[in-house]
């Protein structure tokens, strides 16, 4: 499903004429508001469920502890270290500065093969590995990427499969019905928020490996 098709369905629900999301003549919502609501709902769904996974291969120099994450990064899923020159391939697990410091209380381990990564107490869009690598290598960062920009001139496919498009729609409608003004509909906003939450719940069940369907 494309963004224009979804915007058209939203227009139908908001009693606006369906023109693929081009105009909202009632004045109750602007086009940009609606597009932003859809983008936000999509990204919330992606972040909450980790429905789609992307990866980035980041070159790391010897002694470099912090690396820059891609700009579309939402949440880290997994990190793998690959040393240069057929060096070790090691899973780098999530930890915290506190855990690493207590695992090495004497502070003697400053360089080596990365064991852990932290992304919660660093500046945004930065990831720290510890210990810092004593040789160069590549960090494969598996992460949940943001969806692409929506609402452009050309129809853009959603970042989620069509079966999840309605979850995105209800997430957006929850914001739009909740907007203060003549278009406000608090009961429908709460209903749509509930449908969005149920969509997230179903998605999490599907992504567990035990989901086998009927």
């Amino acid at each position, binding site marked *: 499903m494309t963004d224009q098709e979804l915007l058209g*369905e939203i227009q*139908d*629900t*908001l*009693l606006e004429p*369906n023109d693929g999301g081009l105009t909202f003549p009632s004045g109750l919502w602007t086009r940009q508001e609606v597009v932003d609501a859809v983008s936000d709902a999509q990204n919330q769904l992606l972040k909450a469920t*980790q*429905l*789609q*996974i992307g990866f980035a291969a980041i070159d790391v120099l010897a002694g470099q502890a912090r690396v820059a994450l891609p700009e579309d990064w939402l949440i880290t899923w*997994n990190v*793998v270290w690959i040393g240069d020159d057929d060096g070790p*391939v*090691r*899973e780098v697990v999530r930890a915290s500065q506190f855990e690493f410091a207590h695992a090495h209380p004497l502070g003697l381990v400053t360089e080596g093969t990365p064991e852990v990564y932290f992304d919660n107490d660093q500046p945004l869009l930065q990831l720290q590995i510890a210990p810092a690598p004593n040789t160069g290598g590549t960090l494969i960062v*598996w992460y949940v990427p943001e969806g692409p920009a929506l609402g452009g001139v050309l129809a853009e496919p959603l970042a989620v*499969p*069509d*079966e*999840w*498009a*309605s979850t995105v729609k209800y997430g957006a*409608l929850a914001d739009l019905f909740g907007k203060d003004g003549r278009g406000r*509909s*608090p*009961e*429908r906003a*709460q*209903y*749509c*928020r*509930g*449908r969005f*939450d*149920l969509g997230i*719940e*179903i998605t999490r*069940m*599907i*992504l567990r*490996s035990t*989901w*086998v*369907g*009927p």
Partner: protein
Amino acid sequence: MAYQSITRAQLRTQLQAKWEGVPFWTDAEANWAINEALRTWQLLTGRWKGRIVLSTAPSQYEYPLASTILYRTTVTFNGLPMTPSSYTDLSAGRPRWRQETTASGGDVPRRPTVWVPISLGLIAIWPADAAGHNGLAVDGVATTPVLTDDAEYVNLPSADLDPLLGFALHVASLKRGGVYFQQTLPDYQAFLQAAAEQNQILTTSDLFRRWAGLDDRALKPLQSPSAPKGLAVASAGGDQ
């Protein structure tokens, strides 16, 4: 073989019979409501299945899946079943799994025996097939066969259509809100209950059971009311 008893046009006529004659909804709205019902049904029940066959590449352990498969359920290698696992378990049990192939020797199997899901459209196998050019068959839940033409048949038995039509009516009535929308909530619950009959795993979710009206709070008098907040306020009459 697919069911060929009811077309989109016929299904839309049945849906339009459920709402009053005033043309509050267009044919196009009825069509997308029907397709949303089909997609949601597929999401909840995995009714339509599919299979894709990939050819393994030498020493490759990750395989992207075609978009015709929504999510995977079983994987076989040259017709032999592979065991599902999780990425965490595989990484914990075999830390060097990425570097192991069927030619590694030692305790590494001589054919891929384990598969793990990484995301909806990506799986990994262990060990990687050193030789390549073998068949990897992935069975799974297919993408929804939505209806794009009035002459297309809906691939479902007629017994499954009533809850779908009720859900389509419920989806369309959100536009009106108020009492009209309130009156379609039982149709939504009936749809969820029908989905739960097809897929019992849904009933393991407390949130799902509450939305589907399957949670008998009479047995739990000290707990809060059963309906989720959004459903409760909509049931109270909406905002008109």
